Each structure stands twice: as C-alpha cells, then as structure tokens.
C-alpha cells in the first residue's frame, strides 16, 4: 500500500479480536488498512487516508477491544 503509515501496536492480543477491531475502526474512518503482522504480542497495520483520521485511528486502536492490552504504539516510518 503506497504512502501508507505503518502503525505498530505491541502488548497482549487476541489476534482475531484485535484485527476485527482494527478493520472496523478503519471502515468507520474511511481508511484503507492492511494487516502486515499479527502475533499475540505485536500487530502491524499499514493504513492510509486523511492524516487527521489516521491519527484518530491510532488513538482508537490504542484502546483496543476489551480482551487486548496495548502497551505501546509507534509509527514505523515516522
């Protein structure tokens, strides 16, 4: 995905649950999101769209679903 921002979430994840959450929030914010890595301790998402909404996406996903714990968020190509 060209021009995408890669956001790396680390913590403790139920992968299916977090990926569903990510895709739901991306749809709501009209962003394109692609999961690049999905393990129980790291989820990487390439996301593109309006910058303000990418920021909102990062903020929304930093909370995550109830069964996941996000300990850190960083941008890979920032």
């Amino acid at each position, binding site marked *: 995905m060209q021009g995408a921002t890669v956001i790396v979430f680390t913590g403790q994840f139920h992968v299916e649950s977090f990926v569903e959450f990510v895709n739901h929030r991306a749809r709501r*914010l*009209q962003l394109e999101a692609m999961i690049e890595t999905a393990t129980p301790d790291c989820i990487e998402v390439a996301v593109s769209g*309006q910058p303000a909404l990418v920021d909102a996406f990062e903020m*929304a996903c930093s909370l995550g679903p109830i069964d996941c714990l996000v300990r850190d968020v960083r941008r890979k190509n920032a």
Partner: protein
Amino acid sequence: METGWYPVALAEGLERGTSTGTRLFGRELVVWRDSAGASHVWEDRCPHRGMRLSFGFVRDNHIACLYHGWQYDTAAQCRYIPAHPDLAVPGTIRVATYPSIERLGIVWAWNELDSAAPQEIELAERAAVTPVRSLYVDASAAKVFDALVLAECPPLKNAGGATQRSRTDALVSFKNGTDEILVAVQPLSDVEAALHIVIAGSPDIHGSDSQKRVSAWGEALRRDVEGTPQARELRHEVAP
C-alpha cells in the same frame, strides 16, 4: 425481545435543545429534541470513543458529544470534529439510530437499530392529551401488564360505569365514561419497566386535579406491582 414500537419518553418532558438517556431491553438510548422540535432516538454511544451522547449538548440541529465535541446532525451523520475543523468528515462516521415517532404525547421507538420500521405505529392519535408523568418500576414489563389488566380507572371528570380496558402492543387504555387514561409500558430490562402515563383530553379540562389523581393512581399501581405493603392503603385513598 419482541420487535415493535415501544415508548421511550413523555414528549412534553423532552424540551427543545435537550437530551436524555434511557434503556430499552437493556440497550442504552439517547432521546433528544432538536431546535426545530423534532425528536430523535439513537444508540447512546458516540462512535469516536463510546461516550454516552445523552451526556452531550444540543446546539441548533446538532448533538455534540461531551468528550471531544464531535457533532452529529439530525440524520446522525458526524459533521464537525473540533480538533480537525478543516477535515472533510467521512460519511462512515455516524451514530446508529432507531426509527421513532411521537404519538399520544409519547415518543416511541422501533427497537431495531438502523432499520426502516416495517410497519406503521397502530395507535390512533387523540385530539389532545394531558401528560401526567413517567414512573419507574422494579418489575418486568410482563408483570406490569398483569397488574394493569386488573387495575381500575380512577374517576376524573366524566366517569360512569365500569372501567373498560384495552391493550394495543405496549399501550393500555382505561376508559370510564368519557374519561380515558393511557399507560405506555417501556421494558427497560428484564426486571425493570417504565410507565408513561397520559390522559386523553385537553389540559384545560384535565388540569392539575386530574393529573394529581392519576399520578397517585400510578404510584399505587407501582407499589402493587413491586409488592410493597402500602399499596392497598394508597389505592383506597384514590378510590371514589
């Protein structure tokens, strides 16, 4: 949970430019009235961070979330995000809504999110209604209906003969002579219900005297349903 029209508020209690929170079958709803006078029933949840919209502010024809000020128009579409004033807000950011209508001085909602109500509300409008009050009962809606079918209508202005009761979905009508009391039952949860009580007829006829009488009748009914010992005593007080 049966699909249908359910009461969620007394219309008069919902002033222009205000919002309130309520529940229907355990789901949280915001009921709000815009500055043009139209009422709206939505899921009580801002799509941004999940804050209750019933805590928010109504400004003109928008309701704004208390948390970050995201503003939603009357179609539930987000139109403005204060942190990003120049942002073209995508159409995907919107609140889930319930079909709603005002009838008999009561706000009704169809209990399916983001649906078009498949049937019209069947309640016939009255020429005028006098609002009495909403009452909250620690009992299921089914238990409330069981009590209502046995209740007697208190005499108002034009009583005569025995009370005639009829039920249409969530509404029970009590007629006595030309007096008519209407009680709409809102299932808040499996164990809680709300009664929205109105009198058919103009407030000019059913002023505070009838309202007080019906209000006391409603309280007695609640005590009866909840099983408190004062119930029978209070019923005697409002009896003819």
